[in-house]
């Protein structure tokens, strides 16, 4: 009886919309997923609206309003930095480059990693062997030295960091998408499409890509989390844009401008906690989506 019900339900609504609705319901049922989503919504809204309540003068090193490295007070709830700027203001503003770099580098990673994965999975044979050998080589390479080398060679700045992150994080996506492509291509509807005369390009873009796209989403959320950590690490090492404020550069300034010897916990704690919370938010969502799509992967 239920099988018939499901079949008739599938007839009334387009199957992809139905799957999406079921996915949303599963997602909303998980407290960790909703917590992750809440974190991201709050942080994104703050980052996007920051220019409305933070002015360039608040970020100016020369005419900062407060005393350098002053503890929290009524005027500066999180104290001040080495130049006398409000840490709270810097913290909100610092989310912008960190998030932007993480999201853009993740987009690059997804485009490149998924293309490699789809190509390797679809064509198989020597193409797959060569592409996967390169992928495995990049997976084995230590991430940070490679990212440091790239960022240093390209010169200080946001573009270099974005490229460095994309170059070091695509292999995981390529592997995942190749595995999923193989799984999808083993299913009968691909054979049907081929029998109807679909060419390679049509097969990959119209049949395989929509079916692997949920896994691209999983990979993207987990990659963003990693990208934020790498971005802040590179900025901490001094590779960030020197004129901008980011969480990594805040920790860099705190460390190199005497917050440690001053015991200025209000300077050191907030950017690190912000990094952990945002990375955690993306990780929670990624794991939840992963569990919904493939309950066996969770363990």
């Amino acid at each position: 009886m239920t099988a018939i019900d499901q079949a008739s339900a599938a007839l009334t609504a387009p199957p992809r919309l139905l799957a999406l609705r079921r996915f949303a319901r599963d997602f909303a049922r998980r407290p960790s997923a909703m917590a992750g989503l809440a974190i991201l919504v709050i942080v994104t809204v703050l980052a996007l609206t920051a220019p409305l309540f933070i002015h360039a003068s608040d970020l100016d090193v020369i005419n900062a309003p407060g005393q350098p490295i002053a503890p929290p007070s009524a005027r500066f709830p999180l104290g001040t930095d080495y130049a006398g700027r409000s840490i709270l203001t810097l913290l909100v503003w610092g989310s912008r480059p960190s998030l932007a770099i993480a999201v853009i580098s993740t987009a690059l990673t997804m485009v490149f990693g998924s293309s490699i994965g789809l190509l390797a999975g679809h064509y198989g044979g020597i193409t797959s062997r060569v592409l996967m050998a390169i992928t495995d080589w990049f997976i084995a390479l230590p991430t940070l030295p490679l990212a440091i080398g790239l960022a240093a060679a390209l010169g200080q700045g946001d573009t270099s960091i974005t490229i460095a992150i994309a170059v070091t994080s695509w292999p995981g996506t390529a592997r995942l998408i190749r595995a999923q492509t193989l799984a999808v291509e083993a299913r009968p509807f691909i054979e049907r499409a081929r029998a109807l005369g679909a060419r390679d390009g049509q097969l990959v873009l119209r049949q395989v890509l929509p079916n692997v796209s949920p896994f691209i989403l999983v990979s993207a959320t987990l990659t963003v989390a990693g990208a934020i950590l790498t971005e802040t690490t590179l900025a901490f090492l001094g590779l960030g844009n020197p004129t901008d404020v980011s969480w990594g550069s805040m920790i860099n300034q705190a460390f190199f401008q005497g917050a440690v010897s001053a015991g200025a916990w209000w300077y050191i704690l907030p950017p690190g906690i912000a990094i952990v919370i945002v990375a955690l938010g993306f990780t929670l969502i990624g794991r939840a989506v992963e569990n919904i799509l493939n309950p066996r992967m969770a363990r």
Partner: protein
Amino acid sequence: MSSTAAPLSARSLSALEAPPGGGASGARDFAHYLARKLAAAVVSFAMLLVVGFVIFSLMPSDPVEALTRGHPTSAKQIAFLVKQLGLNQPVWERFGHFVVNTLEGHLGYSWQFETPVATLILQRLWPTLLLMGSSTIVSILIGMWLGIHSGWRPGKLLDRAATGTAITFWSVPTYWLGILLLVLFSTGFGVIPPLFPAGGMSTPGTVGGWAPAHILDVARHLVLPSLTLVLVVFAQYQMIMRSSMIDEMGNPYLLTARAKGLRDAEVRQKHAVPNALLPSVTLIFLQVGTMIGGAITVETVYSWPGLGYLTFQALQIPDLPLLEGTFIVFSASVIVFNLLADLAYRHLDPRVRRS
């Protein structure tokens, strides 16, 4: 689990894939396996040289400009530098020189120290080995112990506490944790007195060598950087050990061991643990890449005079030959350790040999 879970699982999976063994027996089979793995390592190293050359020699727009930044330079001097750096030669010739030089151990001259890069790397090698070695050993001991006990009784208090702690430390940026520990235990915070030195490897002005006082001094300097690395790294050993303990749990040989009348601790230590150890042992070799990343930031925070701090110093200029040298040494060591992981796995798991 944190974001680092993804590369971890991918890496450990690719290492644990059973290499297809031949049907022949014993030594010949092993020689064949060794030759194949060695060839793969050589190919990896060749690719490393290509990527290193592209990043450090082709990508920087103008090395001469980087070298002469801030100095008044005449056209003649620039022409001399271009010739000296070999920039007027075709790319293939430059790559050829680079490969020959690297294989001979000539990694170029550091711009800021004006010393051969190879000499600098050799000087800084021992502190890094000391830091990474000691923190690896401690992480393994803590991670394995916690993994064994939490995997044996999954879902119990110890498991939940240990797993929660591990995941928390795992998702914290290493350098930030290092700074926090520095403020807590070196500057002194609240009731905590300044317990440990803030940086370096020994107190300036003390005599080096193998004097007991000096060894103690180095050990005191080692505590905080090691602790930082251990806190970030032990989770990986714990999680792998925990999951392989859980995998062993359902096996009938444990039932046999219990039926013989062995106590629970004996069943765990003598029967379950040896089998569960396998994946973790290989992981030790595969963690080198992660440890290197941690070492760069931790050595920076504690000004520990190793390769990581050298990388940071090189970054400040940026001193490209020095960065290139450390990049090649770091990556080559990962290739070597991956090779060792393959060999160790085959040696430890007879099933791989027979398959």
